[in-house]
């Protein structure tokens, strides 16, 4: 009887070892943090193509030309400085021409928590609104929706001279 018990234990042990080996060798499938994915997709240069209320890039009879360049903070910096690991931060440069004249430049920082985007200019003045961010599937179309205004941007490169 003892030989049969020993044999069962050995078989169980071998099965356990085999299972352990099987689990150890199976490669893990990486899953990207949605926050980081959104932040990466946000990075780049965007040109305003539609203001929802007017469905154009004009307000009244005045043309509006806006370029935004979003840059994401380095991941190390993000981990070290972020108040919460669930947020992404970075800098922005905004070029705008309202009506006639030349482009004016504004700079500052942004914070993305989930799909909620906020920011402030370099002098500490917060943006005029907070936005919900939506990107289309190929990340070429960005929608920033404020409570009463939704603007659509397309990915582009900065014109020379800006």
């Amino acid at each position, binding site marked *: 009887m003892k030989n049969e018990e020993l044999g069962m234990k050995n078989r169980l042990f071998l099965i356990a070892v085999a299972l352990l080996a099987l689990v150890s060798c199976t490669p893990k499938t990486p899953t990207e943090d949605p926050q980081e994915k959104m932040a990466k997709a946000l990075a780049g240069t965007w040109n*305003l193509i539609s203001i929802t*209320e*007017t469905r154009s890039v004009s*307000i*009244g*009879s*005045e043309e*509006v030309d*806006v370029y*935004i360049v979003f840059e994401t903070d380095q991941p190390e910096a993000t981990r070290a400085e972020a108040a919460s690991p669930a947020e992404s931060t970075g800098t*922005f440069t*905004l070029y*705008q021409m*309202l*009506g*006639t*004249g*030349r482009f*004016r430049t*504004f700079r500052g920082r942004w914070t993305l928590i989930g799909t909620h985007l906020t*920011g402030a*200019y370099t*002098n500490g*003045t*917060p*943006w*005029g*609104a907070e936005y919900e961010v939506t990107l289309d599937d190929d990340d070429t179309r960005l929608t920033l929706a*404020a*409570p*009463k*205004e939704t603007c659509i941007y397309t990915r582009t490169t900065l014109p020379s001279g800006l």
Partner: protein
Amino acid sequence: MKKRIIPFILTAVVGMTTACSDSLEVAVATPESPVTQATRSAKIVNDSEITRQGILLLKFESAPTDEVRSQLASCGVTDLQPVFPSMPGKKELEQRFGLDRWYEATLSDEVTTDAAADAICLLAEVTTVQYDNVYHNEESEFVVPVSESELGLRAATRAATDLPFNDPWLRYQWGYINTGDVSLAEDIYKGADINVKNAWKNLTGGDPEIIVAVVDEAVKSDHPDLAANMWVNEAERNGKEGVDDDGNGYVDDIYGYNFVRNGALHWKNDHPNDEYVNTGHGTHCAGTIAAVNNNNLGVCGIAGGTGNGDGCRIMSCQIFDQKEGGDSRIASKAIKYAADMGASIISCSFGYPGGTYKSDAAYRNGNNKSNKIEYDAIKYFEASKNNSVVDGGIPIFAAGNDGDPYATYPGALYDVISVSAFGPDYLPAYYTNYGPGCNIVAPGGEYYHKVNGSYPPEGMILSCYPSELGDAWDVRGKDYAFSQGTSMACPHVSGVAALGLSYAKKLGKTFTATEFKELLLSSANDFDSRLKGEKKLYNNTLNLGNYRKQMGTGSIDTYLFMMQIEGIPCLTAETGRNQWIDVSQYFGTSSVNLTYLGEPGKENGQVLCEISDEDRESLGLQQDPYMQYGKLYIYPTKIGSGKVIIHAIAGGTIVGGDDAIGGMPMTQEVTIISRTFKSGTGGWL
């Protein structure tokens, strides 16, 4: 020689008949019709104080015939010549402003100027009789020439600052970039300057096609820090000496012309009378406007370029020479010359003694229908388009150094820019005129600012100087000098105007001359908020309250001017909210102190702005926007846009004109975009 009245010419009085000849139509006075008295008053546009004797300026209905000349001879005229040579291609303009009908009449020693004037005005063919008044230039009582070595020693203890050009003495030119360096003046006010630094760095340094005529003493055309920016009449430079190669009526006018000696520019001192001296005034003014920048030499000029040969050009129109000249005839010829030879701006640091005239009409024509010769010349210049930006010339004058509460004429004319002065303390200079007719204030320099118990010259304005002239100890060889005066403030504004024309040309912008002047005058910073209490400077005590709201639109701001040239400012407003919008960024920070023009609003102090019906509808306005406390009130109820037009006065509480000295009316247009929200910075996000 004692003069006597020719017996057959009698001063006209009511009840007497007076005539130069029986064959011409002359006004005849009778007891019933005292037309002679009235005729004299109607034709003589000024009085005989401070005039050149032995000459009268006459304007005719048409070119004088032989018969008219004969009658003039009977009145004591020995020679009659047109004042202005006719410029090829300018005949129509000359006729429009009557310059072709002005003549200078040389008088016999046998007749007094007054008696000749009385007699000549009776001739029907003569529309205007003018005494040849003499101006004075707004020169400073202080001119301190300095050598490069002296400037180097002074600068040795100062740390280098972030300056855009390598000109070694830019650090003394606090009027351009004022870092608050107390080694220049212990009470210096940081930022008291024309804010030109970023314009130089980012926008422009000038354009060689923009020419500024310095109407003054001569500009030393071969000054090492000016020569490269002198305007050159190529036809004369490449032509024959002694020949009027371009047919403009002047011989060998290569860098300009000496209208006193009718010849070459003359800035040296060689008069037998030691009191008759040149002071370097024209050269100093020219240096402020366009000394060559970034040439590792000397000083900077506001429109002196960036070191790439791109500075504006200086044309020397000499009207003073060793205390001679400076009369109406000479000044008028110089102004016409500037117009004919391509100047876009005339920089005029001269004027009548303060208080000589108290209204535009009194200056222009003695309250009669005929205009003075220099008024006709100024109008001719204003009608001359010499660049691709504006449709006419821009005259800029010094306001005067008499400490009077009004500007001097011609600068006080309502449509001419007149410049007052401030010192390094950003307070009115003790000498400056202020009040009605003074449109804007600029650095004029000021002596008497202490440094370590002494009075160095650095509180004044440093610029170019003719090395042929000596200092107080007659030491020569000095290429630079400190000086003060509204004479120095005037070229600051002339330089900024030239820089503005250069930038506008670069952008392809065009304006009317009126629009351009309005933009210039609305590009000003607050100057009033510190005008409280007293300013004590040596033996001078200024009650600063007297200067509040009396310094025009404020202190000129070059960078703001460039921004305005770029385009109509576009401001954002929040839909569904009544709000005040600060327009000072675009209208000058003196906007709170300006007098606004328009229909009154519902409450005291409100002045309605203009807006079209279409724009009112686009913004959903329930009431018109208005100005109050220097801010624009607006309540848009719809997402849209509109243009709001704001009217104000630059340099007074009333618009200048025939009745009184006053300011220049100006208009500023702003665009309002109404959105559902706005940021505090004006940024889109």
